[in-house]
């Protein structure tokens, strides 16, 4: 594998994917490497449209890596990955996606991830997006995540987009049944003229369904971000959505909250705060001996950690 692919893999995944219980490495629209085991199977969809990942009932502590790399200039890659997580299975799924584009044409990856969690299943899903390259072609990532949660299942999603992605539209949709929990944490940093839009749509259908959505973002340069969330409570349920954004230079952030309680026992909360770094925070860190620039970096790094 060439050096560029390895560099991107270093950026988007924390550990060597080959150490995972099962993995599927997709480079420029083709599966390059794959490993499965008796509990976790990965099967190609027809027409190379993507993969189906099947996790057997009661699989414990399975780790699945599905990194995607695009280095071919101007490539537009669309992939459907469907995850079928069996009853009481407990897995960690890491989905890193990186684009290297040195050309003038846009490179784009649209990953559609659909999760089907059976009763009592537990999933931690970690997604990291990254872009690099000297060309003026845009690096575009449009992930769609759809989640269906059966009784007693829980899912935690951590998504991070820190560098280099010019344009992104992230859509996350979830339907929660009885006694389910969905925790989503999103971190985004945009600069230059980048644009990042995220939409969350969570429908709480079951008794005791709950969700906690946290979005922390920093918009610098002339970048634009939009955070939309739409939470629907149809039962005795709980939702807490937090959108926190720091603005620098000419960055713009727009937050559009929507919560809809269709049941008297639905408890839905939305909080949004957008603003520049508080002067008191800078002064405090300067009083600990940091220069203004160091103080600013420390605050932003902590915020997006």
């Amino acid at each position, binding site marked *: 594998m060439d050096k560029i692919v390895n560099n991107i893999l270093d950026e988007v995944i924390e550990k060597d994917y080959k150490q995972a219980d099962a993995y599927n490495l997709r480079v420029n629209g083709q599966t390059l490497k794959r490993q499965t085991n008796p509990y976790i199977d990965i099967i190609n969809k027809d027409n190379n449209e993507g993969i189906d990942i099947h996790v057997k009932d009661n699989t414990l502590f399975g780790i699945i890596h599905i990194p995607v790399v695009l280095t071919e200039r101007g490539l537009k890659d669309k992939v459907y990955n469907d995850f079928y997580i069996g009853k009481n299975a407990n897995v960690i799924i890491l989905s890193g996606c990186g684009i290297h584009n040195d050309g003038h044409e846009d490179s784009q990856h649209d990953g559609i991830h659909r999760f089907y969690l059976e009763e009592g299943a537990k999933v931690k899903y970690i997604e990291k997006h990254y872009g690099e390259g000297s060309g003026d072609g845009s690096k575009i990532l449009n992930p769609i995540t759809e989640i269906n949660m059966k009784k007693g299942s829980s899912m935690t999603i951590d998504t991070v987009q820190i560098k280099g992605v010019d344009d992104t539209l992230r859509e996350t949709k979830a339907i929660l049944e009885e006694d389910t929990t969905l925790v989503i944490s999103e971190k985004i940093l945009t600069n230059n003229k980048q644009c990042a839009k995220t939409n969350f749509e969570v429908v709480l259908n079951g008794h005791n369904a709950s969700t906690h959505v946290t979005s*922390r973002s920093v918009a610098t340069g002339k970048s634009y971000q939009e955070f939309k969330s739409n939470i629907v409570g149809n039962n005795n349920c709980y939702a807490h959505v937090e959108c*926190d954004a720091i603005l620098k230079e000419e960055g713009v952030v727009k937050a559009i909250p929507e919560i809809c309680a269709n049941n008297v026992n639905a408890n839905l909360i939305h909080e949004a705060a957008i603003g520049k770094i*508080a002067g*008191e*925070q800078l*002064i*405090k*860190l*300067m*009083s*600990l*001996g*940091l*220069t*203004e620039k160091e103080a600013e970096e*420390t*605050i932003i*790094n*902590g*915020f*997006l*950690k």
Partner: protein
Amino acid sequence: MIELKNISFERNGKKILNNINLTLETDKFYVITGPNGSGKSTLAKIIMGIVSPDKGSIIFNGQDITDKTIDQRANMGISFAFQQPVRFKGITVYELLKLANKNVATKQNACFILSKVGLCAKEYIDREVDSSLSGGELKRIEIATVLSREPKVTIFDEPEAGIDLWSFKNLINVFRQIQKDYHGVALIISHQERILNIADEIILLEHGEIVAKGKKEQVIKDILNPDLIVAGGENNG
């Protein structure tokens, strides 16, 4: 050790500080007191460099530091505990203590500092300095960040503000300990009699001027003298 010469500060036509001359000596525990709006906080912020005086100069160990920035003064050994400690999302107590002093390399060191301010270190060390902490907890963490710098000049701006009585009792013990262990200038802005009681010297500020300075017995007598103190005052002292 630190000397304020002819410090004046005016805002919106109002004299906040009027020709303050003050010398603070090493190994002494000073308390500045006075009514709201008397200029106490402004004076403290001028020493730290958070506010620049319109006139006058600040001399620290013989060096004029009037034009030095906050971080330059911090690195010279001046430290400031804020009246309303700032919260940081994503920064833990341990990380904040490490920022305060690079020598706090281990969690063990950080725990030792936290125990000095009466916090059970294990419970706090990995917590974020955010709104999950109470006012009293934040205040003690704020004092811990200042102590960990091992400063030559330490300024505490109303350490009792915003904390409950129980925490306040603990805070007094912390200050007693600081007074015992500490070698440098400690300057506390306070209204609390129990803090005044542990001062070596009290400075009484009134309408931007020092109206009394000296041993606590003398100044407390002055404070109780109705001819000297004008009742009331403005906010934002």
